């Protein structure tokens, strides 16, 4: 019973996989498809890991989708100027980190509610992205080496999956095994107490927002590499799903606390449901209903679970 309470969401993921595998053994239940799911969840999970850092602080960053779109458009636009691959990647990642730093500074220094600050700044980024792209989908001049960053396989593992694995390990270590990570949890638990004991609250908040945006920028680069094109609203779908993944993850391991393993489970649930329902031919509107219902259920369970403690 304790196991069920503690690992219920993880068991639910396993149950969903088993049911889909039984319903469609020759399509869903294949190793190739399960590997494919890890590729499909990779970019969402990378954005969601960034969101996790901010959620640990008890804040939101609603500009993640704008940064994903920005990174894609900026990269193709920069390739158009003749810059090389390392320079483009560096510039895009630095600009994304800078965007996150600005959001973090607004929240930490001026105590602007993160919901408002990041929504407003995300709108600024979105407008800037449209301006750079002139509203068009950009796809000219992307070098093949860049495209290889988001597609293909290495030793039978999709490249985006490898990116996710690397990001997940690094940020799991950062959050769980370093002083910085423990400080973030302390700030999220009680900001005033953290400040009174001398923790660098503002600096850590700025760094967390910057890392969140940096990961969104990385996801935007990988999305562009995967598709071979960049759309000015290409990241639009990531915002709600990323936070859904974090919320689902909060029910998975630590009671009510965002964590990297939890977020991975949350992203996996979302990806498995989308993949499985599409394979089974379920209309996309019904998929939305079911995905939303499952997320709502998970959040409600957390609420009732807490009441029962």
């Amino acid at each position, binding site marked *: 019973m304790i196991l069920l309470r503690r690992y219920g969401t993880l*068991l*639910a993921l396993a149950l969903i996989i088993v049911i889909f595998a039984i*319903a469609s053994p020759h399509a869903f239940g294949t190793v190739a498809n399960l590997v*494919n799911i890890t590729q499909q969840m990779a970019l969402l999970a990378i954005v969601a890991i960034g969101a996790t850092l901010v959620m640990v602080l008890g804040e939101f960053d609603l500009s993640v989708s704008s940064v994903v779109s920005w990174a894609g458009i900026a990269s193709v636009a920069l390739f158009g100027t003749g810059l090389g691959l390392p320079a483009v990647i560096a510039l895009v990642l630095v600009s994304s980190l800078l965007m996150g730093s600005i959001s973090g500074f607004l929240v930490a220094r001026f105590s602007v509610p993160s919901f408002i600050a990041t929504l407003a700044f995300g709108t600024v980024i979105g407008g800037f992205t449209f301006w750079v792209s002139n509203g068009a989908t950009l796809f000219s001049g992307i070098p093949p080496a860049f495209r290889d960053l988001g597609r293909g396989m290495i030793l039978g593992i999709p490249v985006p999956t490898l990116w996710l694995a690397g990001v997940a390990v690094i940020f799991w270590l950062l959050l769980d095994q370093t002083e910085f990570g423990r400080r973030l949890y302390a700030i999220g638990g009680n900001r005033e107490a953290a400040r009174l004991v001398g923790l660098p609250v503002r600096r850590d908040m700025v760094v967390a927002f910057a890392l969140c945006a940096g990961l969104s920028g990385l996801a935007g680069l990988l999305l562009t590499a995967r598709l071979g094109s960049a759309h000015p609203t*290409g990241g*639009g779908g990531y915002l709600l799903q990323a936070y859904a993944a974090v919320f689902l993850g909060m029910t998975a391991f630590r009671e009510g606390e965002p964590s990297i393993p939890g977020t991975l489970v949350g992203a996996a649930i979302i990806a498995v449901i*989308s993949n499985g329902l599409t394979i089974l031919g379920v209309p996309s509107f019904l998929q939305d209903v079911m995905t939303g219902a499952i997320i709502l259920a998970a959040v409600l369970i957390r609420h009732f679970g807490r009441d029962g403690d």
Partner: protein
Amino acid sequence: MRAGIFALALAGLAASATAASATDIAVLTAFQSSVTTNQMINVFEAKAKEAGWNTTVVDTRGDMGQLASRIEDVVAAKTGAIVLVSVDPKLIQDQVNAAAAAGIPVIAIDGATAPGVVLNVTSDNFELGTKLSDFLFEKLGHKGNIVKYYYSAHPGVHQRELALDEALKKNPDIKVIADHYMVVPGPIDDARKTTEDLLKSKGDEIDAIWAAWDEPAIGAQLAIEADKPDSKIIIAGIDGNPQAIELIKACSHIKGTVSQDFDAMAGLAADGLTKILAGTKPEKPELYAPAKLITPESLGVTCP
């Protein structure tokens, strides 16, 4: 309790899975909220039913990354064919290639030709844009100020914009005094708000509104009707959207729409797919559905 709620959700899945077991045609789009895209999907589904196919419609609401993933899913499910509606296959070329490599025919409706796409059925969007521009400029006597509502992300709609650019070169006395990149989904509301603003700032200068498709034209009409009903501003769009035709009949500011025959497009696509599934290669990789200009006169209406 968790298991109970998940079981409830999955019960629905199991029920739908049973119904979907015979699915063999996957219809995928990112723009189903568009009236015309939806119309094409509906007509295609009806034709598919007649042909004895089962269709599954997937809409990713503008999200091309999701669309790429969903194509991978239907390829994994070994669907009989993939029909892309209002999507440029080049933007998801890897996934189209993967489908082609798996022997799954990919066709496009209102899309574009691309490697791996066996057939694209569309209108000649450049011609549509030319017809719209010529009609509007003729109405203005080849002199005046226009507002341009456009959406470059859609390959077909972008062609119309290029046609306008060409027409403008031939009509130096027509000036674009404002333009606006439409918000999709929600172009009617977006055009309404934008037109309201433009009426306030440049209302006396605007002679006509060039809308890359009918939904922005409808939004502009709503704004003019509310804020400046006596103005002589002319609006024209493309698609032959039923609401736009009704507004033309009602002698609104919308004076023309270049009608795309979406039903014919979806029908030609279904016919083409029938042949492809029977092992016959289409005669041409791209087929054009006919287009015609609809005006009050062509509808038999005399407006004051």
